[in-house]
């Protein structure tokens, strides 16, 4: 089975279509960033309080909103988190409510507001820590464990907490469910001291304003150094124009990816930045493969026009380019579809990035090379895209002979 055997597509000829395509998406992205959704920054960069809550049955966001209102919380956001079947909700507080004086105050307020109908003197088992449960069991001693009490109750607590968290996703609906992991006597005893609320807190992220600023700076430096590193490496391995073409390509890819986040209103977190840097590496790889082939062909086809050489190189590597893109895309798609909610932003960036990165090596990097050479030729200068060392070696041989 073989795709693209003997392909001979005139890629450079289509460069205006490519340019138009890229322009449309870039401009759409930029417009969205400036005027529509802006650049949606995640809590890592903006600061704030995020509490992820899972409910035992489908949550009623309006009712929750009313509860939080009643508790006096203002300026909060509630949204469904993940697929509806998860029954998960995200409550977000602005960074202004998240000061370093009392960093977790917002979280405490949210949890308190969600606890309705608290029976007198009972603790919520869905949000109790292992220590609370084991201390309680040690005190009540339902199994009359005697000297072994510490170990037995520690093991029972672990079983209960493990069942609640790993099997039931953090929320129990009824204490009877615990009968499958421990003694009915223990369950009866728990019934006296604990009740079950409708929710369990799955995840909490609280980022103060200072850290938010630090992370923003770190992300920017990382991107800058990455681009610099690339430019230097390519300059060293090829000619400087190759390096420049690659950097412009990568910039184009990043712009369109961030634009996609803006258009889809998805948040950019630290892991998304990691994904973007990875796709920068990937796009670069792609570009290098084509550049390597161009360089090889320049040595072989010295008499032909650069445009023809480049076209031929792209066609020769087309099979490999599409295959790699396809295979990597397959794996990244698996991540996007099956990898869970936490990695969603990350995998979205990679899905877009792989497609755009592959496209840009052909549609942006190669035409830049040719355009530059034609511009130099137009001004009567020697074409620089030809590697200088080839010329030198030939000169030396001629001189000796």
């Amino acid at each position, binding site marked *: 089975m073989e795709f693209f055997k003997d392909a001979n597509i005139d890629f450079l000829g289509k460069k205006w279509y490519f340019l138009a395509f890229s322009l449309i998406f870039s401009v759409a992205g930029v417009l969205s960033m400036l005027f529509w959704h802006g650049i949606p920054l995640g809590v890592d960069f903006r600061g704030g309080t995020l509490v992820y809550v899972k409910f035992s049955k489908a949550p009623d966001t309006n009712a929750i909103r009313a509860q939080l209102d009643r508790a006096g919380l203002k300026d909060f956001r509630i949204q469904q988190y993940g697929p509806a079947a998860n029954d998960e909700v995200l409550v977000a507080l602005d960074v202004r409510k998240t000061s370093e004086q009392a960093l977790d105050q917002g979280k405490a307020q949210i949890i308190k507001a969600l606890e309705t109908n608290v029976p007198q003197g009972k603790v919520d088992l869905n949000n109790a820590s292992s220590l609370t449960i084991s201390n309680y069991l040690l005190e009540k001693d339902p199994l009359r464990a005697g000297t072994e009490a510490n170990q037995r109750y520690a093991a029972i607590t672990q079983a209960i907490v493990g069942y609640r968290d790993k099997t039931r996703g953090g929320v129990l609906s009824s204490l009877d469910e615990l009968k499958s992991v421990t003694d009915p006597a223990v369950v009866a005893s728990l019934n006296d001291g604990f009740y079950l609320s409708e929710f369990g807190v799955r995840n*909490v992220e609280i980022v103060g304003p200072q850290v938010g600023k630090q*992370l923003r700076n770190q992300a920017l430096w990382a991107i800058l150094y990455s681009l610099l590193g690339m430019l230097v490496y390519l300059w060293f391995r090829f000619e400087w124009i190759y390096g420049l073409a690659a950097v412009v390509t990568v910039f184009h890819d990043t712009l369109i990816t961030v634009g996609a986040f803006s258009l889809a209103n998805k948040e950019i977190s630290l*892991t998304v930045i990691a994904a973007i840097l990875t796709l920068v*590496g990937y796009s670069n790889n792609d570009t290098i493969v084509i550049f*390597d082939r161009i360089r090889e062909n320049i040595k072989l086809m010295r008499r032909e026009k650069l445009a023809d050489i480049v076209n031929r190189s792209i066609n020769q590597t087309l099979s*490999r380019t599409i295959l790699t893109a396809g*295979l990597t895309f397959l794996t990244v798609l*698996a991540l996007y*579809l099956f990898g869970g909610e936490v990695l969603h932003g990350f995998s979205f960036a990679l899905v877009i990035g792989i497609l755009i990165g592959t496209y840009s090596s052909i549609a942006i990097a190669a035409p830049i090379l040719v355009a530059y050479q034609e511009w130099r030729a137009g001004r009567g200068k020697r074409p620089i895209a030809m590697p200088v060392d080839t010329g030198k070696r030939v000169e030396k041989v001629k001189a000796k002979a």
Partner: protein
Amino acid sequence: MTKNLTWKLVLIVATLLFFLFGIFGVPNNWSGKGLISAITDRIHLGLDLRGGTHLILQVKVNDAISVDSDAAMERLKEALRTAKINYADISKPDPASNPDRIVIKGVPPESSGDLRSIATDRLAEYDLASGPENTWVITMKPQLMASLKNQAVTQAIETIRNRIDQLGVSEPVIQEHGLGQYQILVQLPGVDDPARVKEIMQSTAMLEIRQVFGGPYNSEQEAIQGQPGGSLPMDAMLMQGKRTPDGQQTWYVVARTSAVTGRDLRDARPGQDRNGMPAVSFNLTGEGGRKFYTFTSAHVGDNLGVVLDGRVQSVARINDAIRDSGIIEGRFTEQEVKDQSMVLRSGALPAGIAYLEERTVGPSLGADSIRSGVRAAVIGMVAVLIFMLVYYRGAGINADVALILNLIILLGFLGFSGATLTLPGIAGVILTIGMGVDSNVLIFERIREELRNGKTPASAVDQGFSHAWITIVDTHVTTIVSAFILFIFGTGPVRGFAVTLTFGLLANLFTAVFVSRVVFDWILSRKQRGEALSI
């Protein structure tokens, strides 16, 4: 040729076994569950997969500077008094942002020489400069300030580590965070009750013993009026005490400086007071004991207050000199006394801490994340394996073997190095599969091209590998450089990603080039002359 091949095959099998050991160790039992527990023992899971608490603390280093400069101020006042030099005022004009800056006003010009010599003598770590209108400004020497600040952070890390150790958290991470920002990173896997941990870490547990001039009063005004002359003496300040049972806040008038601080503490244990109620009994160090003895001898008949975290806990009369032990009593519960002793024992926090970031991953989320991550990895891997078989036929088997070996080496690397596997790390594994197979594609495409140009299978394989090699190196190096930058600038989960990506690509260099080549050579050696290569 065959001999070389045998050695190479042996090397590959040895590598396989070596890295399998890295993943599993030697499992206790070979069932499914046994193997899974063997893996989780060897491979270190990050917080986002295990559940736990992640905190970033800011050490308020200015506090540490204040302690030193407050003491310096007292020494200066005493020295000036002894030398009978008059002054109008000695104070810190801006203690919040310049905790080391002391301004002296109203020293008569003829005493400036004496002032200078006192400063050189008693305040060696400070610089004295003259200011406008007959004032003098004392600031701490910059190196000293920097070293005090760094010391504060190091000591805070030690203290926090002690406290966390006593809590019995397994594999906590406590280390300096960031560059020069005096921040500490604390990661506590498996801790599902961050509130209690924060309480234990937070309390500066500053134990001080100060002279008490008056109290308890019901309000600040009452306290001030209760003093001779209706105002606070120069060396006294107001301090809160405990609340009365009906919630009333009490106030005391205490000395500005302490006779004994937490640094002089050697031990603290739960004990009992005279009435058998829970109390904390403490012992002082030799040096601390000496200081305390001097102080108490000079103040027999006065009142002493035990101050914990800036609150007066209890007051007692000094009947005679005390050397080195005492009791902190108050309405404590057993648990409070236990916690309090532990906090005191683990050393005093040299400065206050503030929380900058808090993340708590519930274990349910951690378990779900592992499930989703592994599921996505398996699906991705199977999709790639099948595709390679279909597209490249016989050579597809070659690629698949290389890919599986790649995965084993990568996981083995993780097991051996003790690097942390995070959720983005699992994504890195998935990405390695996709990018790793690229090397195989490069080589196979080249081989196909050479075969099309009429080369023999052996020659095509040779050409394929040698042409593709340089491109493979290029692409791997650039991605590893990206990963390196991510490692430097990234936080925990992102670092996990950088690590698996790097290990995976390094492993790929071995499997896609060496192992694939060996497999091809082995296949070729078994073919008859002229037989086609399945690719």
